């Protein structure tokens, strides 16, 4: 009952007048009703595999030296055997157009950009429907669209049909994307990291929805992800990809429970919740390094001709917390809960509306630009996006030396250069990085350099805003170990903003949960994780896809048992 067969697929992409092998001899097959998870780190070729199957790689920029991709239709095997299968790699463009959207549906990663902002939801759903079913009447089509939106549980679908994508939340947009992929009832659904950009609670709902739809329709599902937690929740069969090759394929319990290949083993061991924790002596409560008292950041909402302030958006609404020396406080919450605004207000990058910020006992809430300067040295920040965290026009040496110069650290430029070189060694980067530019480094390396930039001023407190969320797990593991070492060895205080519970578990001494601008719960990490007191914390924790060591993986839905 194979639906899709990929045999020895090789995909080469044109890059700088050379051919780079992105996929190297991948063979896999997806059966009806089966979920095949392709998991791997960035650059492992998992998306290119999916795009090769769909024939969506840019024309003239790719080639397939070898490989066969066959898509079988209903009953092919019984009637005509293998010969009736459609060869997707060599099919012509009109055939492929009929296949895409018709027999194979696809969901992309970024719900914010995969819908056309100038067309209504209804129009976009209608487009692929009228293309693949030209014989349907307007009436039939609109009924079908309504049914599709109902199926993905969009509230009030009759009204939503005429709305534009910007009116929908990220989760709802992803639901619309799923409706669009499924509206022509494809036999195979390819989902390329469909939940990566979503919050955990939304992710849990979308995964449940995909699972349900799949078992109801008996589709094959090729699911691409980098998250082992998601794999454990949704997969029947797992393929682990590394450098264009499928290094391990097997049933999900086998691959996750008893990985055979070294690469898989290392990947699973690098998951933050699996990292070995150093024994930490219980902290003696010291005076707090940084303290927030009832901090509020409100953004005015202006309306009308005179731009009168009619209301205010309470991004941070009365938050009190403190971080001591040698302590990591993790701030957890979903997107839009105000954690990044809190971070920026704490660093005095945006003005707080009310409340006070105390750094080592001194009130810095109302200091001016020059008044802040000596305090800037003591609190530093590392941001989320490795792509924009370093000035692309300056070599690393200039980036590291300028703050030292401004704050009078180091005798002269020579001494500063030696200090910068020493710092690079601390963050485990080669010293010749000093004369390189940011674009020459990978994401993980750039985050290390950003950490070095933060450390250059010998701060007492470092704020880390989701600094590992754009990184692969193995790279993340290295950075987390580095951060923990810095905190333990130097007694830094750290506020670590994240949405990844595994990271919290590994890194944080205490954690605080934030929702809609307020702290709903805080306490020691183990206690909060083991026995959450608040309903919201419980929902959040339950939604986190986890991979529990040794325990049988929880199965849900009937998809797994549907096929022989």
């Amino acid at each position, binding site marked *: 009952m194979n639906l899709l067969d990929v045999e020895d697929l090789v995909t080469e992409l044109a890059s700088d007048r050379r051919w780079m092998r992105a996929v190297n001899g991948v063979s896999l097959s997806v059966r009806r009703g089966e979920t095949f998870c392709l998991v791997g780190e960035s650059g492992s070729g998992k998306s290119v595999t999916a795009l090769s199957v769909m024939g969506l790689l840019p024309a003239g920029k790719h080639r397939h030296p070898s490989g066969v991709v066959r898509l079988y239709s209903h009953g092919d095997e019984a009637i005509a055997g293998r010969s009736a299968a459609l060869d997707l790699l060599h099919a012509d463009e009109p055939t492929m157009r009929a296949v895409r959207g018709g027999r194979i549906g696809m969901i992309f990663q970024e719900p914010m950009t995969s819908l056309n902002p100038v067309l209504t939801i209804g129009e976009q759903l209608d487009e692929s429907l009228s293309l693949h079913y030209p014989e349907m009447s307007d009436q039939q089509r609109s009924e079908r669209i309504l049914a599709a939106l109902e199926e993905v549980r969009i509230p009030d679908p009759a009204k939503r049909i005429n709305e534009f994508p910007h009116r929908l939340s990220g989760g709802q947009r992803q639901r619309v994307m799923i409706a669009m992929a499924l509206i022509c009832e494809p036999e195979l659904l390819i989902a390329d990291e469909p939940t990566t950009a979503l919050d955990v609670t939304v992710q849990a709902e979308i995964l449940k929805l995909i699972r349900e739809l799949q078992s109801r329709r008996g589709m094959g599902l090729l699911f691409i992800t980098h998250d082992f937690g998601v794999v454990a929740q949704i997969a029947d069969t797992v393929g682990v990809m590394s450098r264009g090759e499928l290094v391990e394929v097997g049933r999900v319990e086998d691959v996750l429970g008893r990985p055979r290949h070294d690469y898989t083993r290392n990947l699973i061991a690098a998951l933050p919740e699996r990292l070995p924790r150093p024994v930490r002596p219980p902290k003696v409560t010291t005076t707090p390094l940084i303290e927030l008292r009832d901090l509020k950041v409100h953004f005015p909402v202006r309306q009308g001709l005179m731009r009168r302030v009619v209301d205010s958006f309470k991004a941070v609404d009365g938050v009190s917390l403190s971080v001591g020396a040698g302590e990591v406080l993790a701030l957890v919450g979903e997107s839009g809960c105000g954690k990044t605004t809190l971070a920026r207000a704490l660093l005095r990058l945006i003005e707080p509306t009310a409340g006070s910020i105390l750094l080592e006992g001194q009130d810095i809430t109302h200091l001016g630009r020059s008044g802040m300067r000596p305090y800037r040295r003591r609190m530093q920040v590392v941001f989320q996006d490795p792509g924009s965290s370093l000035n692309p026009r300056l070599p690393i040496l200039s980036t590291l030396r300028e703050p030292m110069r401004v704050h009078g650290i180091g005798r002269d430029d020579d001494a500063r250069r030696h200090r910068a070189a020493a710092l690079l060694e601390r963050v485990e980067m080669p010293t010749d990085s*000093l004369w390189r530019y940011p674009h020459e480094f990978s994401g993980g390396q750039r985050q290390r350099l950003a950490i070095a930039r933060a450390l250059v001023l010998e701060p007492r407190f470092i704020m880390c805003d989701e600094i590992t969320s754009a990184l692969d797990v193995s790279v993340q593991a290295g950075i987390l170990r580095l951060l923990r070492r810095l905190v333990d060895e130097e007694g830094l205080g750290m506020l670590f903003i994240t949405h990844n519970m595994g990271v919290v578990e590994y890194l944080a001494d205490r954690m605080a949960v934030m929702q809609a601008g307020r702290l709903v719960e805080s306490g020691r990490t183990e206690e909060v994780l083991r026995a959450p007191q608040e309903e919201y914390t419980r929902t959040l924790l339950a939604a986190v896809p986890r991979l529990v060591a040794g325990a049988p993986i929880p199965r849900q839905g009937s998809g797994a048992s549907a096929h022989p």
Partner: protein
Amino acid sequence: MNDAEIAVDREKRSRPWGRQVLAALLKSTGARIGLAWVGVLVLVATFAPFIASSHPLLLVVDGQTSSPVMAYLTPVDWIWLIGFVAVLLFFMLPGRLWLRMLALLMTLGVTTVLAYTLVSPPALIIYEEYRELEQAGAVERVLRAPIPFSAKDYLRDMGDTGVEAPLQAEDRRHWLGTEDNGADVAARMIHASRIALAIGFIATGIALSIGTIIGGLMGYFSGVVDIIGMRLVEIFEAIPTLFLLLTFVAFFGRSIYMMMIIIGITSWSAYARYVRAEFLKLREQDFVQAAVACGLPLPSILFRHMLPNGLAPLLVAASFGVASAILAEATLSFLGLGLVDDPSWGQMLNQAVQSSTFNWWLAVFPGGAIFLTVFSYNLIGEALRDAVDPHTRRTEGTS
């Protein structure tokens, strides 16, 4: 890390961004053609008095050697010559960019002051002096410029000269013909190249400075500064440059400097918009926020961390701006509102139209020069856009 290791490390240094852009720029054929033409123009403009002059370069009379050209060099000639050497040194000498820039500007300033106080060429210029001397047979040896006519030499000694097609006269050689008053077209075009270059660079320089400062402040501070700045931009965008120029010419007479300033102060608004948009985007970038969090001073944040990252669209717009400033001057001169006696390409085109007969050489050569120059700047702008755009440029190294 000791010094020996640092010396090794130097080998591994990456090329600075500016060099990378330059290398990418020079890879494009269009940019090479454009830069070559502009380079020729710069050479011609700098050495104009030595290329086209009625005064001999060297003259031996009664055993005494003299150089009439040098005696007749005006302050402007001197500024061009010394400025040319200064710019060459600016590119050749090592050292920090801003130091060299400062030295260049100071050299130019000092040269200007000195040139106008020290240089005093004869007030009365008799172009035919040396030709008559030569005909009288008093000259032992003479070395003339390749084009032995000055821009304003109307050949009074040659009788009733007027419009002549190229290479028509038997006793004189006018490669590109003569214009209405009998002056050599080639000589006038060579001297006019100065105006074309200067107006392009100075007017755009003025516009760029004003635009960058106002746009930068609007983008970084936003809020009230932004609102006021944008209204200012709108006011200046509502003024048509050409009509303002006409008005000013009517009030203050015709001056090339006036034109540069007016073209400059009416065309900064586009640059301000570009810089503002870039700064609004950059302000939210993590590395700028990190620079603020490091407590770096405002000028460093604005000019070291933000401006170089927002420079790309500005450079491209500026290279098109140079072209349009040249066109603006040509338009004015063509309309007969430009300079009176001093040669300019636009003014020569004007003469082509005003004659009763169509004198093709008066239209083709200056028109061709305007076209080539504007086209060159556009080619450079085009290539620059590709060179600075990370999407079209391949990154080198290990990215």
